[in-house]
């Protein structure tokens, strides 16, 4: 009913609509400010505690140096190029593993989801793989592929594959049956059915899988780099801890979390772009 009321394009209803829009825009801006201030406030509070607690002697500043010291260490790491090298190494690995997983798991999932018999045949196997912690397989990957780049990329690829694959399969299986009936009623079949109905209907669920995989790619990579690597952020954190360079260790950690947040935001933005039809405009 609201849609009906809002969408009458008559002139006399334009007036009240724009009058309503005025205060609501202002309120929305205020709301956005309040929420963004709220979001920042929590982080600022955390950093404040981090800064003051060691200084006041509440925690040992050897193990938790004040935030400003960490920031200083971060700056020096950034200046001498170490941070850039390590970040570059990590990003290259995690993006290649992640990219490969998207390129393989999405088409594979579409095929598996489409053929019911294949889906039910492979279902139990996929469940086993999904529920096997990827990191438990890290020794196997190292054994088979050595400690070089290949095993790192392979473990990221492996870990990213499952969320994407399983979400893609359920996306295809979950296409609204009325839409399939519609497609059949207009005699749409095979490739065109896939292209015009199944694929667009599956996009949102597939993206959920991709977003999950994005988080997984960083998580798994950092752990893998801690076990055996000569470069990378996981290596930086681990090596700093061994050398008792505690501020550098924290600098590495905040870099990792910053990358995680940025990567996730990028994927969310991409998801919005592809599924804009789902977001009700103006509500």
């Amino acid at each position, binding site marked *: 009913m609201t*849609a*009906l009321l809002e969408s009458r*394009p008559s002139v006399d209803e334009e007036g009240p609509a724009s009058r309503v829009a005025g205060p609501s825009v202002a309120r929305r801006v205020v709301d956005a400010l309040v929420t963004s201030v709220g979001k920042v406030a929590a982080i600022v509070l955390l950093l404040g505690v981090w800064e003051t607690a060691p200084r006041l002697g509440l925690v040992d500043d050897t193990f938790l140096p004040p935030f400003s010291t960490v920031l200083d260490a971060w700056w020096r790491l950034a200046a001498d190029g170490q941070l850039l090298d390590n970040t570059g190494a990590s990003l290259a690995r995690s993006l290649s593993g992640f990219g490969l997983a998207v390129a393989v798991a999405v088409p594979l999932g579409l095929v598996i989801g489409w053929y019911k018999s294949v889906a039910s045949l492979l279902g139990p196997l996929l469940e086993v793989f999904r529920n096997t912690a990827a990191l438990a397989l890290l020794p196997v990957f190292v054994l088979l592929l050595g400690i070089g780049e290949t095993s790192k990329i392979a473990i990221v690829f492996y870990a990213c594959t499952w969320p994407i694959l399983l979400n893609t399969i359920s996306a295809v299986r979950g296409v609204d049956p*009325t839409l399939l*009936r519609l497609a059949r*009623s*207009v005699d749409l079949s095979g490739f065109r059915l896939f292209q015009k109905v199944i694929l667009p209907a599956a*996009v949102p669920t597939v993206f959920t899988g991709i977003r999950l995989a994005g988080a997984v790619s960083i998580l798994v990579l950092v752990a893998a780099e801690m076990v055996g690597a000569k470069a990378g952020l996981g290596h930086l954190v681990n090596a700093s801890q061994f050398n008792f360079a505690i501020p550098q260790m924290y600098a590495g950690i905040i870099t990792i979390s910053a990358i995680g947040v940025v990567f996730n935001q990028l994927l969310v933005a991409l998801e919005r772009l592809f599924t804009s*039809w*789902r977001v009700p405009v103006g509500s």
Partner: protein
Amino acid sequence: MSTHISFRDVTKRFVVRDRASRRRTEFTAVRGVDLDVERGEFLVLVGPSGCGKSTLLDLLGGLAEPSEGQVLLEGAPITGPGLDRGVVFQQYALLPWRTAQGNVEFGLEAAGVLRRERSGRAREFLDLVGLGGFEDRHPHQLSGGMRQRVAIARSLAYDPAVLLMDEPFAALDAQTRESLQDELLRIWQRTGKTVVFITHSIDEAVYLGQRVAVLTSRPGRVKEVVPIDLGDRTGQADLRSGTGFARYRHRIWELLHDEVSRAQQQEKEVAAV
């Protein structure tokens, strides 16, 4: 007038597998249906719930095949779905990622209409259903009535000879439903399509149909076909309050009454097992 669609002794059975006993049981949805629909006619099928109304429509749409008998379209048996029939579903079945315009174009794409002709045709049919100016809205930005208008425009745009409508207005509120009924009659008069319309509402059946076929409870058969003669419906102000309307309404109510109680009895028995 010539016969456009005819059901010849059509029976449709389904095999249902019982989950608990894993036994296959056969279930007859419709049995021995004989029915002719004239070209350009507006025929309404009305019956109690579960009487196989939708099964008949699926047979017509080519989404199911009869177990016995034949469904003929222009004298030839129906072998599958086709663009000579347009189906309007109760749940609208709009593609949520497409705009109103895009949804109408969907049918045109399926029909192989050239790209440059599509947008003009789509706009023309959105105008026909009173949605000019709403081309760029997505389904979630439209009310239920508007969504069904889009679905009707989609089915009309590729110019099928027959329009099959499966309780299209059942999910709408009363006012919207009445205005869409008028709209549908107007469109039918303008386009001259053969319409087969399914409903469980007696009022809707009397208001829309030139003839109303009353079906029995399961297994569905045609109990009686009632011709409705109310003159030009769109020209009359409050047709539903007239005595003629009430007489037809009562006639169909009588025919349906026993069937509805039998259908309810059947449902209770099924639930008890």
